[in-house]
């Protein structure tokens, strides 16, 4: 029934045109950020729709890198995100291994409890955490952020890891056990290296969860020098007129690496999602 690939029927032309236009419209907000970040200082109140503004300049990038505390915010975000990644990967890979390889009392209840946490309105956890941190004087510390973010990232990571472990035949570990490995050694030396693709997704997800979180950071952190990137950029975006170009430049610096990584890993993410969902 299929027509040969080179036949341009009117229907096909229409579909092709629709997809191209839709894709262009989709990336338009991203193009906007680029445009605004390139605007020279005297064109902040521009009503031009040109994609490359007249007299384009990299001034905003220079301002962000050398005059604004952008690099400090990035350092703060890196400290928090890398710590969360470390905890997320460690905790998820061990817990998921237990769920995948062993049958024990409370197994399925535990698995569903992890999933149920997705259902709480964020404030329901934020509010008690905030009161608790206030009492323990943990406000304005990174420790508070790290704990909160690790917990948000864990459920997804545990499900992804468990789904992936399930695809690795456990005969390999059995062989290792017969050769005299302890269960822990079999896990660390045999399974973990094989699970590297899932580990990378878990790491990416934990990192991203912390790297772009705004609402918790807003209530935990109030001192400017402790700001993470989302707080810092929001403080610039608040002042539409003066800082808009700087905000755009900063966002782009933050976005581009993250988006490149995400696109490169989309395939893994999707298969991770679907593998995790196959069996309960």
């Amino acid at each position, binding site marked *: 029934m*299929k*027509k040969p690939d080179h036949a341009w029927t009117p229907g096909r032309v229409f*579909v*092709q045109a*629709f*997809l191209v236009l839709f*894709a262009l419209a*989709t*990336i*338009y*907000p*991203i193009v*906007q950020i680029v445009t*605004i970040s390139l605007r020279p200082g005297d064109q902040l109140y521009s*009503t031009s*729709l040109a994609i490359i503004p007249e007299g384009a300049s990299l001034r905003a990038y220079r301002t962000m890198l050398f005059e604004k505390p952008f690099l400090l915010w990035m350092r703060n975000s890196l400290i928090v995100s890398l710590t969360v990644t470390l*905890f997320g990967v460690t*905790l998820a890979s*061990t*817990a998921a291994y237990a769920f995948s390889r*062993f049958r*024990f009392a409370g197994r399925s209840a535990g698995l569903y*409890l*992890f999933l149920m946490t*997705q*259902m*709480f*309105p*964020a*404030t*329901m*956890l*934020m*509010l*008690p*955490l905030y009161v*608790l941190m206030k009492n323990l004087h943990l406000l304005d510390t990174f420790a508070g952020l790290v704990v909160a973010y*690790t*917990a948000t990232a*864990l459920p997804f990571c545990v499900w992804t890891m468990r789904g992936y472990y399930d695809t690795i035949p*456990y005969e390999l570990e059995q062989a290792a*056990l017969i050769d005299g490995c302890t*269960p822990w050694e079999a*896990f660390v030396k045999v399974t973990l290296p094989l699970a590297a693709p899932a580990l990378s997704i878990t790491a990416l997800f934990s990192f991203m969860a912390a*790297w*772009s979180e*705004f*609402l918790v950071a*807003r*209530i935990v952190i109030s001192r400017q020098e402790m700001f993470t990137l989302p707080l810092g*950029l929001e403080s610039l*975006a608040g002042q*539409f007129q003066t800082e808009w170009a700087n905000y755009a430049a900063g*966002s782009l610096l933050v*976005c581009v690496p*993250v988006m490149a990584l*995400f*696109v490169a890993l*989309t395939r893994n993410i999707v*298969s991770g999602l679907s593998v995790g969902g196959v069996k309960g």
Partner: protein
Amino acid sequence: MLRAPRSFPYALLLPATIVMLAVVLFPLGYSFWLAFRNMSLYHFRSHEFVGLDNFRLVLTEPIFWTLLGKSLVWTSVNVFFHVAVGVLLAILLSGPVRGKTILRTMLVLPWAMPQYISALTWRGMFNFEYGAINLILKQWLHLPPVPWLSDPTWAFVAPILTNIWLGFPFMMVVALGGLTSIPVELYEAADLDGANGWEKFTNVTLPSLMPVLVPSILLGTIWTFNNTLVVWLVSNGGQPADATHILVTYIYKVAFTYSRYSYAAAFSVVVFLLLLGFVMYVMRRTASQERTA
């Protein structure tokens, strides 16, 4: 299943469980406890038990019902467009199209962007005088500009548009994955039966996609319902005059701007119970459908 000492799986689970208990279960219990007390900025140390007062306040104030309505509109409009746009694009993309990889990459980008940056960027694009959307309306389509962020109705439409843009790539990717697993034979059989394109869509494509779509829709519904960030950032904390809130952004504002901790806790308990009821209802219905199918 592996053989190991009985304690081994529990040892593996211990670290993650401690974190989840400390950061999820304990706060959850604390939230319930708080909901029955009168903690606020003025009663931060000296709060006391007030019974169901907070719940009574939540359920009798008209704002709850207004916000519930807006949350339902917010969730259903968003999820509907996420699925409709996502599935449509997935179907078109899996047909004979040039430049598939680049088109798919472009269409996935909104998902890849950190949400707060998308939301802030859209807020800028909605600016009345200098935002790109009004400029396009004015310069290309010769339409009058829209007061996106100052009129209560438009200020609610703006975050919805933003969130549709944010959410369709996820459904598109899920649907793309589901489409590849439909056997070609089904379409050949439909062709033999003389089915037209629409009949093939409703009788082959859609039923085959459902098993993949339903869990994603359920998850997407919960995420959208609980999405505080987009409404908060696009409307700049509920502006104008707290008229653009949905349930979860209102709770966030009441808790952290007005410091009415116990009232906010009661509010979130009610919202949580609503969601729990919804999810259990849906899961029971899909389970019974699977049994009869």
